């Protein structure tokens, strides 16, 4: 019986390395590297021109933000289909605030827009957790409602680059050393989210809730409150993405962010976040977002016409979930073997 302790001894350095190699995220990272290598071999400027490198980092940044938010929500066995619409509303709010209140300092406007996103997320969260209604239905509803409100509010209006301060638009392209500022923001958000989800009690509770909500309730976890906060987080990140969207693209009409929700879910799924909650990481989701958009940009370089991009993305998503399934089966088998040998 004393053998139990030793046979399940902690992994050494080698063990950790092999665990890293087996991690789901590593696979996506390698796929990303592969895409980069192949594409750059074909056209060196894909990576090695100043703009190529910048766009590699810059293009996926907004998607990374909402993919991280989406991952947090999906981990709790929910889904937030309204993020695209939240981006639309917060982007427009950003523009409107600048256009009609030229005196407002830039950080205040940004903060207000992010808070607005958080508020929209809060609405989702309250409906889901207080009314105890499935999130797919609720956020499908708010996807429509938020976008509809946006269209009504915007009308045929439109925010142009000239309506906004140059300093704000500069955020869209500014760099800190070699890193675009927007990318830096995305990375900081990602690191914080990853730390919280991995190493804080409340972060782990999100996994527990997603793994089995009924058990979590019996266990005494504050399921409603945690789920609520997950939606607020998703809304906040979508709000931030909306602000950065405005800074980067300079023009906002009523369709900003349209259809991004499925891309965000797709990115999370490609990144190994299980659609039924309980497993996956925000890092994986972020990598999924980068891979998705990098492939999008790589295809034309590789000579595949624009039109086939959707098909490639589809294959990628399906391949990713099949891979997850295979990995899960393998892990189950390995564990049985381990326990047998320990016994």
């Amino acid at each position, binding site marked *: 019986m004393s053998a139990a302790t030793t046979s399940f001894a902690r992994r050494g350095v080698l063990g950790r390395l092999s665990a890293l190699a087996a991690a789901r995220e590593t696979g996506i990272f390698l796929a990303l590297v592969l895409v980069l290598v192949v594409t750059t071999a074909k056209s060196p400027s894909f990576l090695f021109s100043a703009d190529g490198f910048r766009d590699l980092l810059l*293009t996926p940044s907004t998607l990374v933000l909402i993919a991280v938010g989406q991952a947090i929500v999906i981990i709790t066995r929910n889904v937030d289909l309204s993020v695209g619409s939240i981006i639309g509303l917060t982007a427009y709010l950003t523009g409107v605030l600048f256009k009609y209140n030229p005196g407002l300092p830039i950080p205040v406007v940004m903060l207000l827009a992010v808070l607005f996103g958080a508020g929209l997320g809060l609405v989702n969260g309250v409906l889901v957790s207080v009314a105890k209604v499935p999130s797919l239905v609720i956020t499908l509803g708010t996807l429509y409602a938020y976008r509809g409100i946006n269209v009504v509010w915007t*009308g045929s*209006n439109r925010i*142009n680059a*000239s309506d906004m301060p140059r300093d704000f638009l500069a955020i869209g392209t500014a760099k800190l050393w070699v890193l675009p500022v927007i990318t830096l923001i995305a990375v900081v958000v990602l690191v914080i989210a990853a730390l919280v989800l991995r190493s804080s009690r409340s972060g782990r509770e999100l996994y527990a809730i997603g793994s089995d909500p009924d058990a979590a309730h019996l266990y005494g976890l504050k399921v409603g409150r945690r789920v609520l906060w997950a939606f607020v987080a998703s809304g906040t990140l979508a709000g931030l993405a909306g602000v950065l969207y405005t800074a980067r*693209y300079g023009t906002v*009409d009523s*369709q900003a962010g349209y259809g991004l929700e499925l891309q965000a879910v797709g990115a999370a799924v490609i990144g190994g976040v299980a659609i039924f909650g309980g497993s996956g990481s925000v890092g994986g989701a972020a990598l999924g977002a980068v891979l998705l958009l990098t492939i999008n940009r790589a295809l*034309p370089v590789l000579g595949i016409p624009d*039109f086939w991009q959707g098909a490639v993305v589809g294959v990628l998503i399906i391949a990713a979930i099949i891979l997850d399934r295979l990995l899960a089966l393998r892990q189950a088998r390995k564990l049985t073997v381990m326990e047998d040998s320990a016994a």
Partner: protein
Amino acid sequence: ASTGDSGSGDGSKNYQITFLPKNLGNAYFDTSDAGGEKAIKEFKGTYAEVGPAKASPDAQVSYINTLTQKQVGAIVMSANDQKAPCDAIKQARDAGVKVVTFDSDTSADCRDLFINQATAEGIAKVQVDLITKEIGDSGEIAVLSAAANATNQNAWIDLMKKDLEANHPNVKLVDVVYGDDDDQTSFDKTAGLLQSHPNLKGIVSPTTVGIAAAARYLSTSSFKGQVKLTGLGTPNQMREYVTDGTVEEFALWNPGDLGYLAAYAAKALIDGDITGKEGDSFKAGDLGEYKVGKDGTVLLGDPFVFNKDNIGDFKF
């Protein structure tokens, strides 16, 4: 029990004219529809504008249906698809509603009149002329278009290809990409173009959304001034980039005039002055006299080239 509607007139003419742009929130259509409104005010009609939020091919159909039911005098629309709205338009015309297309046409047999902003040849030629002049008549160029299915875009691109082959053997059109008249997509597609084609010397974007997005990308990138950009744009959107040197020259007709002309054409149809057959002529307010050409088409005029020197004169 429908309540009686004003103007669905027995005695007086039914001057209820509704503009149906490809989508709302598009600066180009804001300008053209404003031109239409101005014309309609002049002849004391009722102006309205409805439209979908997103420019999808089927989205205009239910609007046409509704306008048919409401018995408006005329619909003035820019079609999202050459064929998709035709059946609805036919129903509208059967119900006595006149249908004028502008900017982007449907099949000639389904509408009454098409107000052509410029001939396709003229538009293709002015853009080819501008870009070949700017890049010194040799090297690689690419096209950033709107939706892959946009009728007018594709017609122009075909003509440009022919013109290039015939008259500019050293200029090679290496790629056509589609920004879907979406700002973000166009922006990203520009970035993609520059990477896929390191030797690219020029981009032509025959769409106002595309050229503005491309100009914005170029203006903050290292390609500014290196890669030439021209196409069809509006002065308001392009002013900044012409001033900072990203773009030297671009072309467009005056969309306000286009809407203005379309509204008068609709009035002429309602009045019964014209029926849309070749040779009909009508008076379009300040713009003067216009003649209906082949296939029920009315031509606005030649495209206008904007540059640093004249852009200050335009406010749309």
